[in-house]
């Protein structure tokens, strides 16, 4: 019984210390997140439910082409490697998994009322919508998500770019 008690107490100690260290690191890390932010409360117009005038819009390939032609700010939510291999011309890299870093590098030059269209790899990828929700929580209210993603853009035979990061 001594060894079992010892194991349980030690496990609790490791878990508590690990949790404290994790919280401290998360609060100071550039990619740290607030686990209690209401990302699931962000309104999204996905056809099934209308979320209001400033809700995130889910757009079709035609609407995406129109936005691209109007030179809206297109955001690529994939990784840097995927972006370098090929992206929609003029798109700005904003790796969703390095949210904090790209918030610091990209957002200062984008005002909250500018129209942003976000895409990621394809219809099975949630990163574009998740990034849109994060941007909504940061005050951006003119957001669209192209769910078809880079896959649909390529399938439509539309042009692509294979250069490095695009500057705004």
């Amino acid at each position, binding site marked *: 019984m001594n060894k079992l008690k010892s194991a349980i107490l030690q496990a609790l100690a490791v*878990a508590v210390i690990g949790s404290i260290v*994790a919280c401290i690191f998360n609060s100071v890390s550039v990619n740290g997140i607030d686990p209690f932010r209401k990302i699931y409360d962000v309104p999204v117009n996905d056809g099934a439910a209308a979320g209001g005038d400033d809700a995130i819009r889910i757009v079709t390939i035609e609407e995406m082409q129109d936005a691209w032609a109007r030179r809206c700010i297109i955001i690529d939510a994939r990784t840097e490697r995927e972006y370098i291999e090929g992206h929609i011309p003029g798109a700005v890299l904003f790796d*969703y998994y390095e949210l904090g870093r790209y918030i610091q590098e990209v957002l200062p030059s984008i005002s909250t009322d500018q129209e942003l269209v976000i895409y990621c790899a394809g219809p099975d990828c949630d990163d574009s919508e998740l990034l849109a929700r994060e941007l909504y929580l940061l005050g951006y209210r003119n957001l669209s998500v192209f769910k078809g993603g880079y896959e649909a853009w390529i399938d439509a035979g539309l042009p692509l770019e294979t250069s490095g990061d695009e500057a705004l």
Partner: protein
Amino acid sequence: MSITDHIFISELPGERRSWIFNPWMLLVFRLALAAVFIYAGLQKIGKPLAFADEIEMYKVLGYGPLLYCVAIVLPWIELLCGISLVTGVFLRGSALILLIVNAVFIVVIAFRTVNVMAEEGIGFLEVYFDCGCGFGATYAWKKLIEDLIFLALSCILLVAHAYRFIVIRRRRRIA
């Protein structure tokens, strides 16, 4: 003697012990597990959104505070358990944590494998995905075998009588 006295290996005078509980073998097991979990923890620390995405794929936790808390905390616990295995500090507790963690991993990976088999109409040996453990995509059957080995090593370390090569040792011999 209680049930736990039977589970935890005791060192009675003259008792023959399996080679598995040889102090050098225990050290090898400790270092092997430590290498795996230190690497796995370091791969995921500082990347909570990516890890949260990986966990969500198992459809056990949806996007929300609990998922993000697990994504923030679990890599650090893996790292601390790995450090504990190397130093010997809180070793038995870390073995208990890793036993539980690996048991959970095996269950959720098995469920996800069955779901992928049903959705894609492929056989068990063909299922291939990134489990989110920090080692990239691999065949599910390989991952399950690995996790079973880690589970076994955690169990051995948990029930061992005592360990040598401890950085900080208490006055009593029981670690």
